Structure formats: structure tokens, C-alpha cells
């Protein structure tokens, strides 16, 4: 029977149900976790003997760049990224190529091989939503969704400047439906608009050109709208001044803006059973903290400012972060922050691309190599790990590499192992530039994450943060039957033996998606259907009408007609709307 499986005798790590390595059986019927299977069902179901192994919910990546125009620009401008990394077609799987930016098929297989089943694209420019959905539809095995880039949107900046919060909220709701996207992304608020004039903003209270709105006003407005609409996830914030020495100060000040914004997650969904309250209590989700945490004034005197921010986060409860770790090696930097990419170009002289997305946002792409011999790159490596190790509560942290910005997602096993093994960190300290040790606190950190912590950072918390716990991130009854089995015996786990950890994380023993085994030891064995989630946000008809009148009037500045703007559902694989803000 498809979608029905028993996973027996594994050590279960399910943080949302506070299960810390107990030996249990997991049952899945028709794709959903159930309490038990009847004798008849058991007879027909597949059985995995997970004795001596670690069992976790399927991996959830709440921040990756895997689909859309800039990802594809990264593929096209980098033939050198493809010629040595390629995948042969089999009777089941498609061919593919690419190391830092793999083709859609390859990235689906690569994620599944590591035990991941859910991946969210963290930046969808509205005008590129169709393209993004086409690539998500073609990415096999992964349940997906995308965050809509709204931090420099003409309509929103105008409404926020005028203080018309109701129309602004109606616009956000309409945009989510129109582009079939899931949550709000805010990249370099107010700054990317200035980039159209060759400029940027450098402080939270600097107004931008024409709209005369400040980053502070945009962050405040978007975080308030987010809660007034009851969105599943907090605003995914990419703070201003990213990647510049000294930027940690503006990052910390940005985090203070939504402090006090009351969270209100209003989704009409059937929640999977969890012991912990699955609802979200963070009002801001800061992305790639590492890139926003440089202290100092120039690249010569720069140092880690992570401690200062993590001290703040340790004392506050409204912030959750993802790390943006840099595991050394090849990367392709791609962001909606056009000016940041231009700065990287002037720094490196590498080839680059930049795009102005009409009235909405911008983007830039540039190939980058993080070298152990380079002082700043070594500093960044240590800072990325500081982000996850200096924040005491793992429920405030999510492990990412901002793939492929800090490095491709296929380097997650390295990051996981550094977090779990001080010996592995020491080994890397001995290989990289001394700035990693001299200019960060990492050398003095002896914290080693447990498998339980790791399950929080890579499953439970990303799912909880983005409001997907109704289906993902736990093994509670009613959750999707997405399960990862790692060949790690927690009783014999030795963090000093990091080579073994690396090997086991690279290829999960089993990856199960909705009750079907999709990968065994990294080999793809089946290709069940996938889903795309989006937020169908309700607002009053009247509000929407008034707002649409404005939008239609301004639409003449777009290069396409209003009727061609929306992304129809046919662009989505198994479109799965989540009703938000409905009457209950």
C-alpha cells in the first residue's frame, strides 16, 4: 500500500513532542503519521528496521534559493559550476548538473539524499513568481513554497508612507493570492529602491529617494501588517547594510523595531498532534545573521559582532534567526540586495549580474569562493557557527547556509558536524586563517549540540517558525509521514569521531516522504508527488476593491498588462492553499 509504512525500533528525536531519543515505532498510513496500524495493514505495509539508528522528522529548510530568475541566472552565468558536477540519467531519475546551483532535478534528489523533504524558496520577486513556480514544480520530491519580496515595493512604500495600513494589508493579502506565495520577505528595506539610482541607504532613519520612506518605517509597517493578517510566518528580514564592516549595529537596531508587535497566527488548518504549543510566537525572522553581524570599520579591522546580537536575542523572545553559515569552498552569491552584490563585485572583480525588477525589487548574482587562507572568509566561518552556538535557546535558531550564498546546501553535513563536534571545529581552526580564532568567541565555546538540538535546528524549529507544524517538523499523529533515518546509534555517538558523522549526514539511511521511501543511502528509489503551499489570505471585499483601484491605476508603469500579472494555479505542483485570516 503506497504511503503506508512502519519504522520500527529506532531512537526517535521529535522535539515538538519532547521525545529525546526513546526507542519507539513510527507508523504512517496513507501519507500521515498514525498511532498504530492494524494487523492487516501491517501485513501489506513496508517495514524499516531502524534498530540502532536515529529517526527524525524529515528535514525542513526554511531558507534556500532553489527556484526563480536569479537562481537561474546563477546557473546560466556559471558553466564552470556544471562541467565537473553532473548526474547521469537512470530509468527513474533525470540527468542534472551543477555544484553550487544545481539544475532543478538534481537539487531535488540531492536534498532528498540528505533526508530533507521540505524546502522553501526565500525570495520570490512578484514579477518572477511564474518562473519561480515553474522551477518549483519541476523540482522533484520536495514540498515547497516561496516568500514574496515586498520590502521595496512601490505600492507598499506608498501606502506605508501615507499611513494607510488597511490598504497596505489588503495589498499584501492580494499579492500572496495572486502570486501563490507563502510569506513576506523583506530585503534591504527602502535601500534596494535607492539602488535604482545607484545609491543605498545606510541608516534606519534615512529616507529613500522619491518615496521618502525609511527602513524603520518599512520594517515596522510590514511586521505589523504580518500580524494583522495572521500570516503563518514572521517577516523574513534581510537587514540593511548587509556584508559591511560595522553592520551589526543596524542589525541589532532593526531587531528592536518589531519588539512589542503582538504575534497573531491565524490559519485555518488541521494541526498535527504535538506536545509543545505549535503556534508561532516570534514577530521577526532574521535571515542569515552571519552576513549582518560584522563589527569594525574596514575589512582590515573587522571582527565578529555576533556576540552583541546574540546577547540581545538571548534576552528577548520575539526573534528567531537563521545562520547563513559559510562552510568554505565554492558558492554563488545571489540576493535581492542589488547594491550588496555591486559592493562584492568591486571587492572581488568577479563576474556579476544585476537586475532591476520594475516597481518591486532588484537582485544580483556573483560567484564566490570562501578560502581557508583568507582572513575574512575564516572569520565568516567562525561567525556563522557563533550565530547558532551563542544563542542559548535552540528554538531561536535555524541552521542554513543561505544556500548557495554561504555554500551549497550539500554542505549542511559539514555545518551539522561542526555544531556537534568541538574536535571538528578545532581541526578547522588549525587549517584556516587565525582571524577565525582571534576575532570571534568561537574558540572559547565548548558547547556541542545533541541530536535532539540538531533536530530542533533542522526540522522542528524551521517548521514551527514558518507555521508548517500542522504538517511538517514533527512525528505527531496527523503530521505528514516525512521521516529521516540516519545510521547513527545515539548510544555510541562520539562527536570526536567527526568523519563518521559527516558520512552519515551526507547520505541518510532512509528518506521517507508521506510514507513512501524515496531514498536509501542517498540513492533515489521512488518519486512520489509533491506539493506547493501558499497563503490564501482573506481580507474584506471592500478593502480589496479600494486597493485594487489604486493598483490598476499605477499598473500602467509595468511592462505587462494587469491580466497577465497573476500566477495561475496550473503553475503549481499540487497547489495547497492555506487559508489565513478567515473567520473562525
Amino acid at each position: 500500500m503506497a504511503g503506508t509504512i512502519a519504522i520500527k525500533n529506532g531512537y526517535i528525536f521529535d522535539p515538538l513532542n519532547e521525545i529525546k531519543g526513546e526507542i519507539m515505532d513510527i507508523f504512517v498510513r496513507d501519507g500521515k503519521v498514525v498511532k498504530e496500524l492494524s494487523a492487516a495493514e501491517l501485513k501489506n505495509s513496508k517495514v524499516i528496521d531502524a534498530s540502532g539508528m536515529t529517526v527524525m522528522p524529515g528535514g525542513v529548510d526554511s531558507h534556500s534559493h532553489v527556484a526563480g530568475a536569479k537562481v537561474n541566472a546563477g546557473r546560466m552565468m556559471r558553466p564552470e559550476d556544471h562541467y565537473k558536477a553532473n548526474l547521469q540519467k537512470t530509468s527513474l531519475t533525470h540527468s542534472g548538473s551543477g555544484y553550487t546551483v544545481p539544475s532543478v532535478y538534481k537539487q531535488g534528489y540531492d536534498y532528498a539524499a540528505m533526508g530533507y523533504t521540505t524546502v522553501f524558496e526565500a525570495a520570490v520577486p512578484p514579477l518572477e513568481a511564474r518562473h519561480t513556480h515553474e522551477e518549483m514544480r519541476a523540482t522533484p520530491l520536495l514540498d515547497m513554497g516561496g516568500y514574496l519580496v515586498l520590502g521595496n515595493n512601490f505600492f507598499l512604500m506608498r501606502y506605508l508612507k501615507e499611513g494607510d495600513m488597511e490598504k497596505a494589508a489588503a495589498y499584501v493579502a492580494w499579492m500572496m493570492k495572486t502570486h501563490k506565495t507563502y510569506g513576506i520577505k523583506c530585503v534591504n528595506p527602502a535601500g534596494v529602491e535607492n539602488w535604482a539610482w545607484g545609491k543605498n541607504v545606510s541608516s534606519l532613519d534615512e529616507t529613500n529617494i522619491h518615496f521618502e520612506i525609511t527602513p524603520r518605517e518599512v520594517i515596522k509597517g510590514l511586521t505589523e501588517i504580518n500580524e494583522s493578517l495572521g500570516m503563518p510566518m514572521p517577516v523574513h528580514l534581510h537587514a540593511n547594510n548587509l556584508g559591511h564592516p560595522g553592520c551589526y549595529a543596524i542589525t541589532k537596531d532593526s531587531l528592536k523595531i518589531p519588539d512589542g508587535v503582538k504575534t497573531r497566527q491565524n490559519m485555518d488548518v488541521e494541526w498535527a498532534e504535538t506536545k509543545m504549543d505549535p503556534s508561532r510566537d516570534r514577530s521577526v525572522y532574521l535571515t542569515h545573521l552571519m552576513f549582518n553581524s560584522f563589527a569594525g570599520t574596514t575589512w582590515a579591522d573587522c571582527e565578529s559582532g555576533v556576540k552583541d546580537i546574540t546577547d540581545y536575542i538571548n534576552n528577548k523572545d520575539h526573534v528567531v534567526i537563521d545562520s547563513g553559515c559559510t562552510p568554505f569552498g565554492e558558492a554563488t552569491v545571489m540576493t535581492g540586495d542589488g547594491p550588496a552584490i555591486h559592493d562584492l563585485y568591486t571587492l572581488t572583480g568577479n563576474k556579476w549580474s544585476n537586475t532591476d525588477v520594475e516597481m518591486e525589487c532588484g537582485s544580483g548574482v556573483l560567484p564566490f569562493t570562501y578560502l581557508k587562507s583568507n582572513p575574512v572568509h575564516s572569520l565568516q566561518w567562525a561567525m556563522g557557527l557563533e550565530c547558532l552556538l551563542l544563542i542559548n535557546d535552540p528554538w531561536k535558531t535555524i541552521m542554513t547556509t543561505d544556500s548557495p550564498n554561504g555554500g551549497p546546501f550539500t554542505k549542511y553535513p559539514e555545518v551539522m558536524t561542526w555544531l556537534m563536534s568541538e574536535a571538528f571545529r578545532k581541526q578547522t581552526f588549525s587549517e584556516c586563517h587565525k582571524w577565525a580564532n582571534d576575532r570571534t568567541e568561537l574558540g572559547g565555546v565548548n558547547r556541542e549540540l545533541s541530536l535532539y538540538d540538531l533536530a530542533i535546528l533542522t526540522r522542528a524549529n524551521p517548521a514551527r517558525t514558518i507555521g508548517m507544524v500542522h504538517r511538517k517538523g514533527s512525528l505527531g499523529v496527523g503530521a505528514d509521514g516525512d521521516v529521516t533515518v540516519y545510521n547513527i546509534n545515539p548510544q555510541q555517538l562520539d562527536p570526536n569521531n567527526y568523519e563518521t558523522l559527516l558520512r552519515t549526514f551526507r547520505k541518510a539511511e532512509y528518506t521517507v516522504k508521506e510514507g513512501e521511501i524515496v531514498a536509501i543511502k542517498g540513492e533515489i528509489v521512488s518519486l512520489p508527488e509533491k506539493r506547493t503551499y501558499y497563503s490564501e489570505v482573506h481580507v474584506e471585499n471592500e478593502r480589496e476593491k479600494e486597493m485594487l483601484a489604486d493598483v490598476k491605476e499605477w499598473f500602467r508603469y509595468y511592462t505587462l498588462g494587469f491580466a497577465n500579472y497573476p500566477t495561475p494555479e496550473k503553475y503549481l505542483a499540487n497547489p495547497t492553499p492555506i487559508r489565513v485570516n478567515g473567520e473562525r
Partner: protein
Amino acid sequence: MSEVILIPKRTIDIKLEADVITPDSFAGKSADEIGKLSVWQGPKTYPLSDFFEVKGNGGSSAAETLIRIKGDAMRVKRIGEGMSAGKIEIEGSAGMHVGSGMKGGEILVFGDADSWAGMEMTGGLLYIKGNAGDHVGCAYRGKWHGMKGGRIVIEGSARHQLGGGMDGGEILVEGNVEGFCGIRQNGGLIVVKGKALRGVGAEMAAGTIVIGGKIERFSPGFEYISMENGLILGRIELTGKFRKFTGDYAISKRAKGVLYVAADANPEL
């Protein structure tokens, strides 16, 4: 040294991707086993023995293996790709990517070599008795770092972008080159005894280029330093007068590339 002889059986239509033809993969194999190694032709794979008659067994190691291709291999790509030791002798011409990424050992091509010969090689010797195509010792498309070590000798002429993005090693061309020789060079030595078309050393940051003949259109970003009488560059000795330039300052002001140009052939410089 054990000798493996490959005799072409027939003319090849779609070019073969034959990166299995290396001393490394032949070592320790019998003629029969070598014949069973598979090569790509278009979307399909075939045994090597479909295209070549295989005689002789591989040696105990790559270093103990000599491969001799008795005939023309112009439609056989990637011969000797990534080889680390041993020797390949091609009694005719070699297809694209011969010796690309080679780390050691020796390849001798009696005829011509098609484009991308010695692409991104890091060691060893690639000796071409005839002419070579474009991109000799160059970086792959999109990449800015080409050949890092080893030596390429071309008795004839080569075409465009010889030594593009070269980081190290040495290329010697007895004949002429065409456009953009040493484009984006970061190190190493290129010596062309004949003439060059244009764009010599464009955007080079380091390394040395010598052009012994006329440069049709000289790159504008170079600065004249001095007149040199005869040159000794490692094992290469050249007689006659050379004008020494540094550059390319067209974009970077910190470039350290050195370009020597035969004074007699280029009186207007």
C-alpha cells in the same frame, strides 16, 4: 613499460567522449578488459572495442603504461584527460580536450590537436607536433583559472585564447597564434616564436608572454619599460632585441604582467 596499442577500426561519425583512454584507467587491465571500458557517443555508451582494436595489456601502474594510438583520433575527444603518469602517443591527430586536466606523464601528438588541448592541466608534458586549435591550456568557459602547471609544446601554430586564465606552467609555440593569447593570465610563461593577431595579454594580471613575431594590433593597456637584448626565461633562451612592457592596465592599475615583443618585427611600438 607495457604497451597498449589502439588501432582505429572505422571512421567515427558522432565524436567519442573517451576520457577512459588514460594510462591510469588502462593500468592493471588486460587487452580484453580495456576493450570493455565504455565510451560515450551521443546519448549512448559503447565498449571501446567497438571503435578500436586493442592489443597488449596495461602495465602494473599508470607510470608503467604506454598507450599508442595507431592512426587518426581527430574524432576522439578527451584522450588522456586527468592522467597522472605514463605516456600516450597518438600517431595521427587528437580530438578536442586532449590532455585536459592532466596531472603528470606525457602525451605526444604526431598530428594536430583540436581545441581545448591541455585545458586546466596541472602537470606533465603535452607535445603537439602539428597545429593546435583554440583554447590551448585555457580555463573552461566561465572560469578564470586555466593551466596551473606542466608544459605544452606546439611545433606548429595555435589559434585563439592560448593560455587563457593561465596560472602557471609553460606553453611554447614554434609557429603563430591568433587573438587573445594569454587573456586574463595570472602566472606562468607563454612563448610564441611567430606572430600574433591581437589582444595579446588582455587583462593579464601576472605571468610572462613573449611574442617573437609581429603583433597585428597591440593591446592598448601596456606600458613600455625597457629594451632587452636576448632573453633567458627558465630553460628557454631567445636571441635578438625585445621591447619589455608591463600591464594590462586597461582595467586594473595593479597588474604585474610582463610582455616581451620582438623589436625588429614591431618597429612602430
